[in-house]
């Protein structure tokens, strides 16, 4: 069924967050599982790690502040872990 707009936006945000965590916070690239795993502790931990690094309120949830920051332009270097 065509996704309604809210569901579509939600899915876009999921993709964006997944990519962000993979690119900058060393989240293992495991595409299939992300949406189902969103509430799993590894993903929540990564969201909390990102929120802490960027000075956001550490909720472990994809609140509006968090979604706003990850849409902003930034440097392509990871925030944690090595870069080569």
């Amino acid at each position, binding site marked *: 069924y065509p996704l309604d707009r809210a569901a579509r936006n939600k899915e876009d945000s999921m993709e964006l967050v997944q990519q962000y965590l993979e690119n900058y916070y060393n989240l293992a690239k495991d595409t299939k599982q992300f949406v189902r795993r969103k509430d799993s502790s590894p993903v929540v931990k990564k969201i909390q790690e990102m929120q802490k690094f*960027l*000075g956001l309120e550490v909720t472990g949830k994809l609140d509006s502040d968090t979604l706003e920051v990850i849409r*902003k332009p*930034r*440097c392509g270097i990871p925030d944690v*872990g*090595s*870069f080569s």
Partner: protein
Amino acid sequence: TFPGMPKWRKTHLTYRIVNYTKDLPRDAVDSAIEKALTVWEEVTPLTFSRIYEGEADIMIIFAVREHGDFLPFDGPGRVLAHAYPPGSGFYGDAHFDDDEQWTKDTSGINLFLVAAHELGHSLGLQHSTHREALMYPVYDPLTDLSRFRLSQDDVNGIQFLYGSPPVPPNDPAVPTESVPPEAGTPAACDPALSFDAISTLRGEILFFKGRHFWRKSFRTLEPEFHLISSFWPSLPSDIDAAYEVTSKDTVFIFKGNQFWAIRGNEMQAGYPRGIHTLGLPSTVRKIDAAFSDKEKKKTYFFVEDKYWRFDEKRQSMEPGFPKQIVEDFPGIEPEVDAVFPVFGFYYFFKGSSQFEFDPNAKKVTHVLKSNSWLNC
């Protein structure tokens, strides 16, 4: 810092702007990069010089999408740029996404701000969690460029890697107890201040000292204070002499047995050249001071207790030289630190003293403090 704390094992680094974005004039890109390097130069012992071919420590490129490092850019927005930590080959290099709109202000993506951030990576800094830090990963379009400063976290990070700028080693002109708060920068109103070299430039006067210079205009009371490298990145610091040939709109800068030519803030091609190409004998290792008298069209080179005179019309050193300085400039004791001509007088500098010399009366008419021009 990055894992393993990669850092440069030398303090003088080279950089090369390999290509340009079409969003800005080339000189705007050049000065944004220079300014970005100066940000780090001012708080470390690091110095940078630009090369125009071959492999530099820091290669700067503009590119879109896949550009050869397996980290493709992503089109407009999101990733703006990336840079690699210190090391050989592509390490140390900085890449800018040319799908962004690069600007001098913040109407688009400000090139200076992003370059200063990326060059922090090229020097070994990782991201900061401090929102006010230059090394914070997210670009802030609301940064007030006119009040830009490194945050304490940025300074702590870079000085953890390279230390703070050097204080001139036991320089008598800057006794350690009077070193100003930002160590390594000379104080204009230090009564013991001496200069390395002084030159006029298009109606202004430049007072060179170490890595810095004061720029004195007759239109303003307060002199400006700059790093030499922020205007002329490939000029050395601690220069020996400088003079302006107004008919050529060119300032010549001397250090050791070489000299450079600058026009405004443009380095002239074909320099540095050897000082012996001017006709000085090979026994001369360096010159102490020099000035050019535009009325007489003669340029004077001072070396220890002697001086030579160069004919600007014939473009050759005059016969019958060197002569003793005291012979034609009675009251001027060798060695001269610096000298410049203005208002028909020659102002000679030695240590913290300045001697106003009247070439017509052939005598010293005033003795002043060296820093009397700096509105102390």
